[in-house]
């Protein structure tokens, strides 16, 4: 049994995620879509905090809200002329996309409700992953340790920097 405050926070987050997700893909102004995406990402970070994963919530806010959404806003301001952004977003295959998304949602919801309605009644107790545990797991090479993905991410980010410079430089 969860406390009343926890339930209230859950309902606020769930409603925020649903409403702002729908608004992100239905609004006609692209800058508003980016803003609604920011709200969705904040709500997701709040869910991470609510599940006791503080470090992951912080990473979500720092990388997504601080990095990706700012990149989106820069790109939107660079590529849209003021005034005509409502035409650019107009969509044609609305019915087809709606049917596809609704079919996927219905199928998955049916599978969820028929298969995992009974698992995991309440939140199990957990030891919070401390910074020490995270650091050891990131830089170790044993069982449940992630040195190889860590290094692969480093190389990927380096390749991304070089690729960005090469793609965006003036010829």
């Amino acid at each position, binding site marked *: *049994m*969860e406390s009343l405050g*926890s339930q209230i926070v*859950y309902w606020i987050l*769930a409603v925020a*995620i*649903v409403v702002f997700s*729908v608004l*992100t*893909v239905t609004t006609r102004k*692209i800058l508003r*879509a980016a803003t609604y*995406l920011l709200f969705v*990402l904040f709500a*997701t970070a709040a869910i*991470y905090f609510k*599940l006791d*994963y503080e470090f*992951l919530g912080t*990473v979500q806010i720092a*990388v*997504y809200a601080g*990095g*990706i959404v700012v*990149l*989106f806003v*820069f*790109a939107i301001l660079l*590529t849209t002329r003021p005034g005509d952004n409502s035409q*650019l*977003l*107009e*969509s*044609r*295959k*609305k019915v087809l*996309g*709606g049917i*596809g*998304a609704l079919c*996927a*949602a219905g199928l998955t919801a049916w599978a*969820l*409700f028929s298969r995992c309605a009974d698992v*995991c*009644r*309440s*939140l*199990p107790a*957990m030891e919070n*992953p401390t910074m020490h*545990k995270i650091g050891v*797991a990131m830089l170790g090479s044993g069982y*449940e340790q*992630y040195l190889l993905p860590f290094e692969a991410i480093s190389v990927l980010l380096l390749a*991304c920097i070089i*690729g*960005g410079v090469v*793609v*965006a430089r003036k010829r």
Partner: protein
Amino acid sequence: MDITILCYLIPALVMFCCGVYGFLTRRNMIAMLISLELMLNAVDLNFVLFNRYLYPASNEGWFFTLFGIAIAAAETALAIAIIVNLFHVSKNIDVRDVAHMKH
């Protein structure tokens, strides 16, 4: 009311399907990229939820989400570089016009 894993999976499902809808219907490339971010975010949320509810002793979904966020950031940065470059070439980022660039 108990907050079960299903209570969190339903908003994540709605988020993912909104991403699918936006990816199929949008014509602006940046709007498509925003829909893609919605889908990635929903999948990250699912990894964390299954980790937290089913295997609270280990942190595998947690780390997968961490690396997923880093990859999403790299992918977005590169995609936006390509889109801005495309805008310099064709003054337009409508996906229908990009198909003509190969001619």
